[in-house]
């Protein structure tokens, strides 16, 4: 089945074409970074407006690149939550009405299920069950995955998401938006040991996270180092390195704990922060220590994209799931509410 995937839950318009026989045929992502940069964060109204401009041209590009016409499609998948409701509605209404006009089924996909299944788009596919670390600007969750739609939440952030903490720390240091990747780049040249950043909630049992304390520590360190409101370049690099290492360590400690606790030694990393090189390297070591393996999608499929939505949607459509023409989006939607696939295939 040839499935068109549309992702518009936040600040990236993603469109992709996935075939259940041949795999990912084409995908395009348009990032709205330039739209939001001057605000230092995603402005929901502007995000929604930009999705309206980009959806149709991206669909045409993807179809052309794959050498298919719309009449070849067997189904359409669109992100129906969680996310910014105005942004979600653009992709959902476009996708659902396109499917109706073509007389084919459509399905609303859970954004985080898309992320979680993104490693399935790579050649080296993990077997169920596995532990998934979902890390993005909006989420930090550890999930035990028994199969598609069979998710047990093991732990999550009680405050900021890891990606959010990255962005906020970067903003405090005056780095350009989006701060997370800029901070990581600085961290490469810094001394992670100069400042003793805490590893929040690692000294007690449990798999939950908290990153707001790291933010406070970063703030205090910046203020201690700054002279007349100016931070020396080396200070910036060392703070960035200390911060990044603290986040990565914390995530790795909890991943290790989750793998030990469940006896599952396959770990997947998904979500925007999953593109972080240090996190990838450290989790590889963590998994190997437990005689296990880590799986992650290529960086382009870690950040928001249409390919993961097309893939997740294809699994659901293949199992006979369809969404009604009464379009509804769910801005807050716990992943544990998802149902297992109606039938295996």
């Amino acid at each position: 089945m040839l499935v068109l995937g549309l992702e518009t839950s936040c600040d990236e318009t993603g469109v992709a074409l996935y075939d259940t026989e041949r795999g990912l045929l084409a995908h395009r992502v348009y990032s709205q970074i330039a739209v939001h940069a001057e605000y230092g964060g995603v402005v929901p109204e502007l995000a929604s407006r930009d999705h309206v401009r980009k959806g149709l041209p991206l669909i045409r590009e993807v179809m052309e690149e794959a050498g298919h016409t719309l009449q070849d499609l067997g189904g359409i998948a669109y992100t129906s939550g969680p996310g910014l409701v105005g942004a979600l509605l653009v992709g959902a209404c476009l996708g659902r009405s396109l499917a109706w006009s073509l007389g084919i089924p459509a399905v609303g996909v859970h954004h985080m299920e898309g992320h979680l299944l993104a490693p399935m788009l790579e050649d080296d596919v993990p077997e169920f069950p596995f532990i998934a670390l979902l890390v993005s600007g909006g989420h930090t969750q550890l999930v035990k995955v028994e199969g598609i739609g069979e998710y047990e939440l093991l732990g999550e952030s009680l405050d900021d998401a890891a990606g959010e903490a990255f962005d906020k720390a970067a903003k405090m240091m005056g780095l350009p938006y989006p701060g997370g990747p800029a901070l990581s780049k600085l961290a490469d040249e810094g001394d992670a040991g100069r400042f003793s950043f805490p590893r929040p909630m690692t000294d007690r049992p449990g798999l939950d996270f908290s990153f707001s304390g790291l933010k406070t520590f970063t703030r205090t360190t910046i203020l201690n180092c700054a002279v007349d409101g100016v931070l020396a370049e080396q200070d910036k690099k060392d703070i960035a390195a200390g911060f990044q290492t603290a986040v990565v360590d914390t995530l790795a400690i909890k991943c290790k704990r989750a793998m030990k606790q469940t006896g599952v030694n396959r770990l997947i990393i998904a979500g925007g922060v999953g593109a972080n090189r240090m996190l990838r390297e450290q989790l590889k070591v963590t998994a190997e220590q437990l005689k296990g393996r880590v799986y992650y999608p290529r960086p382009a499929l870690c950040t928001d994209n249409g390919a993961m939505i097309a893939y997740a949607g294809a699994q659901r459509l293949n199992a006979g799931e369809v969404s009604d023409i009464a379009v509804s989006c769910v801005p807050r939607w716990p992943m544990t509410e998802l149902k297992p696939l109606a039938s295996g295939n």
Partner: protein
Amino acid sequence: MSVILTIDASSSLCSVALNINGELVWNTEEQPRRHAQRLLPMIDDILADSGISRHQLDGLAFGRGPGSFTGIRIAVSVAQGLALGLNLPVCGISSLEAVALAAASNSEAGDRVLAIMDAHMGEVFWGEFDVLDGMTQAGGVEQVGSPELCLTQASEFGGLLAGDGLRLAPFSELNSAYATIQPEARIMAALANREWNNGNFGSPDNQLPVYLRNSVAWKKLDEQPSLLKRN
């Protein structure tokens, strides 16, 4: 002869209209915040009830705003999806002109109507329209601003005022019967017909909502508090 579907979601109403070779069927529902849920089912129903297949459609018109930002995005997104799948030309219709045209059918309307819609956040959208032979024609640019600013223009205007913006002070003192008029697909269908005859339907790629209000209540980085000195 042509079959044209018109949809609108720019107000608390959700509406569809089907012009089948000059014969109009329509449906309007009061559906605040449920436009996404109702629009496609209403389209599906009106076609089924009329015995028209979606493949018989020749063109698609949608309420392009101004109005509810989410609503007009729902309408344009649905229009884009349908137009892409059915290879249809598309045309955006002004919601203010629909209000003006609805008012113009009344004998009191004279030859000019000022359409005023509630833009929320204490503002109104407005636009002037001339009326000739029962059809409207834009008489100026559509605007957004305070009701007071709109009133200043309205007092020099001398025509009929219409639209739910009249419910806001200082207009509310007028107690106008025309304050109940909201944009609807059945009115827009007449405007769509005019655009169709003028050859103004085009590619769905170039169709964008008309928001009028383009500022956001969001501080830019240089207005936000900063821990360090800015470069």
